[in-house]
């Protein structure tokens, strides 16, 4: 398998909105991941959910990739947006909707 950073890079290049999470969008396995899924579903933003529990290497690799110690992690057009707190704050202030519509994604 290519090294994890290269794999993450390619996922972020080939998907506009990526959510690294615990579990899957249909079956989130952590309250924080589930909250971000609900927010994205509410905004109707298409996204790719990647379950970090499937690989220890990915679970650690994504934390190193963004220098962010927790999961979930949301990326839009390859840019790290934040974890559950920041995504919730941006959703409540309307910034997330603006960001997604600016990038013509929702």
């Amino acid at each position, binding site marked *: 398998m290519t090294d994890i950073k290269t794999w993450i890079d390619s996922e972020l290049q080939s998907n506009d909105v990526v959510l690294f999470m615990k579990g899957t969008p249909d079956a989130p396995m952590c309250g*924080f991941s589930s909250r971000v899924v609900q927010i994205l579903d509410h905004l109707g933003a298409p996204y790719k959910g990647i379950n970090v529990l499937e690989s220890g290497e990915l679970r650690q690799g994504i*934390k190193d990739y963004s*220098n*962010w*110690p*927790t999961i979930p992690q949301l990326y839009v057009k390859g840019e*790290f*947006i*934040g*974890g559950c*707190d*920041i995504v919730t*704050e*941006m959703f409540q202030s309307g910034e997330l909707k603006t960001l997604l519509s600016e990038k013509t994604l929702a």
Partner: protein
Amino acid sequence: MAMNASEIEHLIREALPDARVEIRDLAGDGDHYAANVISPSFRGKSRVQQHQMIYAALKGRMGGELHALALQTSAPED
């Protein structure tokens, strides 16, 4: 493993001496806290950068010993 609120506050203050720090225990299990941190050092920094400063102050405990820390950060109003 868990942490207590004063330990978290102490670590944040060590890294950000000018910060106003408010810690709330969300679950009473030493693992789920909320922290509101106001510091001039956050001025001009994105939310991600501000939170990364707090995680750095916690010296690797975030996501390990400390499972959940709901963070709210801001620079003081002028």
